């Protein structure tokens, strides 16, 4: 084994050191008042409430979740593709437009992307009130920007020589553009589109916790009333939805050579654009912006937030991101490596699935039953949830990997754990770290969710400022959030590039 691979391997484990300060603070913050509640929460998982009434509620709530999730996905994937095209350099090459515009659009999309859908949701709810369509809009805004980045990245892979060749034919510009981008767009949709639908449904659940509707709202209400049996009914039904949708997605195959199907997709594309624009206009002209009448205070009012407090919140958010990322990176390989047998693997997979399934606010509220609010607790929550996601990827990659090295090492008498580390994991470490770099972008944005619930960082301040209509503070917090996310994305981009 060469030295370089050992470095990637050790880098995957090193971040677990965050557990030292984290553990210290968590132990100091333990309180015993809520252990009974925590126990009830765990027991209820095996005894969910099942009766006619709750089944009807589940169906109704899931229906709402699917509708919000589906429509926000449809709109965000279509507009994501459009923005992806106009933020890719191939568009500017074909139309001979200076790259300056492309940088402006990309920067604008980066800012929009840097703010989590929950923040958009809370912000829009504060302005427009609770509304079914607010959920769709709140998800669509950052998702369009996220999707556009993925589409643009794929369009960057277009062979420059193909561009030169089409360009030399001297076809009309739009014909050249369409011919060049068609397959990268279709392939991105095939590989990435359905995953984004799953993300949309998850985001709908999270937004539901903040009152948008759907199953998320039911989960939150049952948690607030400490009705854990009901809560688990909702969580298991959500699990069934996610598993079923995963199975359906695996079966779906897009055949672009099927003419009828192609025409259907194109019709959906144009109808969605038309409907979105119509709805946007309707939304603008039919809202009286009752709650936004204090917009003028954005420029007039002075903020009560002192510089020191503000910097403390920024620092808290950064620490929260770093600690969570550390857990999300190192925990999965560490646990899989230590408990390296088939039975443990099944348990780890179930546990990871539950961590992915249970929305972060619910995990945090559960942990708050026996621990005081702190940065460490919020970091643990976010870290565990994301470890559930990174472990899924790690399991998938390890399961599909050639195991000959591992078997050869074991046959030499090397221990099972060492053989796993050197014969299996070391081959995956580099790509695993690259994915974790991408994941840490998301973790930075997700600090807003745990911040709101867990009284830490800028997320908490945002909630407070919005509740008191302190728009200047809101603006300040959003700028700070955006800046942290953008700097984080730049750093992670550099890390990803060095790893791929």
């Amino acid at each position, binding site marked *: 084994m060469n030295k370089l691979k050992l470095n990637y391997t050790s880098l995957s484990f090193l971040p677990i050191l965050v557990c030292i300060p984290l553990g210290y603070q968590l132990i100091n913050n333990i309180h015993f008042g809520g252990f009974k509640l925590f126990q009830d929460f765990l027991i209820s998982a095996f005894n969910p409430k099942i009766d006619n009434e709750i089944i009807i509620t589940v169906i109704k709530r899931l229906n709402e979740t699917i509708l919000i999730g589906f429509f926000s996905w449809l709109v965000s994937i279509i507009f994501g593709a459009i923005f992806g095209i106009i933020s890719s350099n191939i568009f500017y090459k074909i139309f001979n437009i200076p790259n300056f515009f492309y940088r402006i659009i990309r920067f604008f999309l980066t800012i929009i992307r840097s703010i989590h859908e929950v923040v958009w949701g809370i912000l829009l709810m504060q302005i427009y009130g609770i509304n079914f369509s607010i959920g769709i809009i709140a998800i669509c805004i950052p998702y369009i920007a996220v999707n556009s980045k993925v589409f643009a990245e794929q369009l960057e892979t277009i062979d420059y020589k193909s561009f030169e060749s*089409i360009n030399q034919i001297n076809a009309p510009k739009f014909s050249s553009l369409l011919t060049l981008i068609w*397959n990268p767009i279709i392939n991105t949709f095939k590989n990435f589109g359905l995953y984004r639908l799953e993300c949309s449904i998850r985001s709908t659940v999270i937004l539901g916790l903040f009152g948008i509707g759907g199953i998320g709202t039911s989960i939150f209400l049952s948690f607030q009333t400490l009705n854990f049996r009901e809560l688990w009914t909702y969580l298991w039904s959500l699990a069934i939805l996610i598993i079923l949708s995963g199975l359906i997605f695996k079966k779906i195959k897009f055949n672009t050579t099927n003419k009828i199907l192609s025409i259907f997709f194109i019709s959906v594309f144009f109808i969605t654009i038309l409907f979105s624009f119509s709805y946007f206009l309707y939304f603008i002209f039919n809202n009286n912006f009752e709650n936004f009448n204090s917009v003028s205070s954005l420029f007039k009012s002075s903020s009560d937030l002192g510089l020191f407090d503000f910097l403390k919140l920024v620092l808290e958010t950064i620490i929260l991101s770093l600690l969570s990322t550390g857990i999300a990176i190192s925990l999965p390989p560490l646990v899989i490596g230590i408990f390296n047998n088939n039975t443990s693997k099944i348990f780890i997979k179930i546990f990871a699935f539950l961590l992915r399934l249970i929305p972060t606010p619910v995990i945090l509220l559960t942990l708050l039953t026996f621990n005081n609010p702190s940065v460490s607790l919020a970091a643990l929550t976010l870290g565990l949830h994301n470890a559930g996601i990174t472990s899924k990827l790690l399991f998938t990659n390890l399961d599909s990997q050639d195991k000959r090295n591992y078997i050869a090492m074991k046959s030499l008498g090397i221990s099972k754990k060492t053989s796993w580390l050197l014969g299996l994991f070391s081959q995956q470490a580099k790509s695993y770290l690259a994915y974790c770099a991408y994941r840490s972008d998301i973790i930075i944005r997700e600090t807003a969710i745990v911040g709101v619930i867990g009284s830490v960082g800028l997320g908490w301040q945002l909630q407070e400022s919005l509740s008191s209509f302190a728009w200047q503070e809101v603006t300040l917090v959003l700028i700070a959030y955006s800046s942290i996310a953008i700097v984080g994305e730049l750093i992670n981009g550099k890390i990803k590039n060095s790893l791929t």
Partner: protein
Amino acid sequence: MNNNTVLELENISYKYKNDLILNKVNLKINSGEKIALLGKSGSGKTTLISILNGTIKPTQGEVKLFNKSFEELDRKQKSKITTIWQDLRLIEDLSAEQNVNCGLLAENNFYFAFKNLLNISSFKKAHKYMKLCRLHTSIYDKKIRKLSGGQKQRVAIARSLIQESNILLADEPFNNLDPKLITTIKNLLLENVDKNNTKKSPKTALVALHRLDLLNDFDKVIGIRDGKIFFNIKRNNLKKIHLEEIF
């Protein structure tokens, strides 16, 4: 420039980073002339072709097509040149027939491009040229990445032929082709044919070659070395000494 000149290079130089790829090249190509471009790998043949078709701009000098500089020409005028690239430059994810139909993009509107991608456009013309290039019907709807080197080569040639342009620039177009096919393809490339496969009008062609046994059908031979034209002579005047200069 006389009235017969279709393409002209005036004092063309091209620099890439610190390397001078073409050095003060002057060249006139008259209508109906068939010119073979000879030179070693890296001598500047591909760059010369790329400058002639307007893909790259020279660092110095001017390119004229029909007595007008490239900047003055509209899209339709520029599309009178067709190129077969050495690296083919086909779109890998599209089928063979879709790639050939791409040659028709210049004379059609956006809707045609759309239909081509959806596979609902007419492939009649594409099939005609694919057949002329001896491509079997079974590969018409196959993706480019699934084809052999020789099949890809013929798809690229069919895409060029379907443009029915009067000026052909080709960079090693006979690569990957077996000897039997070379004669057929060479005739297709150097002569315009009508729908009955009979010769129509003379075609202007500049073809970069490695193989000297293919020179018989050319009127002139240009030798290039280190970015400079060493000779530009009638084929009948080509002597061993000329070849020794460039190879």
